[in-house]
């Protein structure tokens, strides 16, 4: 899943591939990139962008159900993480202490459902952030604050490279409370975050890696 890209922060190709290969709506693009190579990369931006605005969780094979919750009882929009917790990501960032590790506690939503929605959002916000959508940093940071230590580790590392160090970590580690509070403050103060659009560069690097046979 890893790809190389000399002009890209080292962690981003891996995160890009992770999201691209596992999101239900973008998996088919892997094959297209493999067949058409870098020529397809400019087209992929539009397709990825569109796909990442449609929450959709895949019910795991063999999953027997969660009481009243099932794939049939939830509408498509219900799968959105922030709809499930009934909080806006901006509110989570504005009051991080109230939400610290909240997904690990008792919630009105069964934890597997919440985790599926969080994982779904995590991968979509990766694509959006890499496409230059600075607003995606807010929900991503909210997932980090409410999530478990593993989620914090992966999100903090991603944000460190995606925001060029404005928030997040430059090296892998589980962020501590003070760091997350500081990042929340920076995000609130920044009001509008501008990120570089790296999507086509990442798609080119990915396609080159695939066509070289390094992945498939």
């Amino acid at each position, binding site marked *: 899943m890893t790809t190389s890209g000399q002009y890209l922060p080292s962690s981003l190709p891996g995160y890009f591939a992770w999201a691209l290969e596992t999101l239900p709506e973008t998996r088919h693009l892997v094959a297209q990139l493999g067949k058409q190579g870098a020529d397809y990369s400019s087209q992929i931006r539009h397709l990825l962008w569109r796909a990442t605005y449609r929450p959709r969780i895949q019910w795991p094979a063999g999953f027997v159900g969660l009481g009243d919750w099932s794939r049939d009882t939830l509408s498509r929009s219900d799968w959105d993480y922030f709809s499930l917790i009934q909080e806006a990501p901006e509110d989570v960032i504005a009051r991080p202490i109230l939400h610290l590790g909240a997904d690990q506690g008792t919630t009105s939503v069964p934890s597997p459902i919440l985790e599926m929605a969080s*994982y779904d959002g995590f991968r979509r916000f990766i694509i959006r952030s890499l496409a230059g959508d600075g607003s995606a940093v807010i929900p991503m940071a909210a997932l980090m604050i409410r999530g478990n230590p593993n989620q914090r580790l992966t999100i903090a590392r991603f944000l460190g490279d995606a925001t060029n160090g404005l928030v997040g970590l430059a090296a892998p580690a589980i962020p501590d409370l003070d760091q997350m509070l500081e990042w929340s403050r920076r995000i609130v103060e920044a009001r509008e975050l501008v990120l570089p659009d790296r999507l086509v560069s990442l798609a080119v690097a990915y396609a080159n890696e695939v066509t070289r046979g390094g992945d498939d």
Partner: protein
Amino acid sequence: MRSSELVTMEVTVYRGQKWWDPAVTITASSLRSGVGIRDPLLWTTSLIQQINALEEKARAADKPATKQLEQQLLACQMMTYQNPFVSCTYERAVAGSFALSDGTPGYILEIRGPLEVGLDFEGVRSSLGLYGDAFDYLREYGLPIRLVAPFTVDEVVRVDGFAATVVYP
């Protein structure tokens, strides 16, 4: 993770957590987080079987299985209901991060047992060329389903900031 093989190596790993009670068996997160899952043990066991089967196929150069294993291991470490292992680490400092997460006290357990019984996440990834960069730092070793024999807890330390107190044995 092939329990039928001859056990030749012992491993010492660490686990960081917020509570510890010697009377309570520590279980895989998929057993604990499955609110509403009808049979958490069946679910957990099936996850283990799935990972074992995928690893076996991946070692036989089955590319779809290799990709599926890569994704399953990522899911394991991102979603507690997908993780059929008691998460441990080879690094005491990493366990300390978990124990002290959110700035509150916690416990570090030192655990010993036969290497082949659990899953060395990074070992599997590196031997099969799987992506897992985001989690390399954890150096995770998973004990299947529960912390029970043949694994033993050798020491438990309560940590609070920079203070550490041995509470077991």
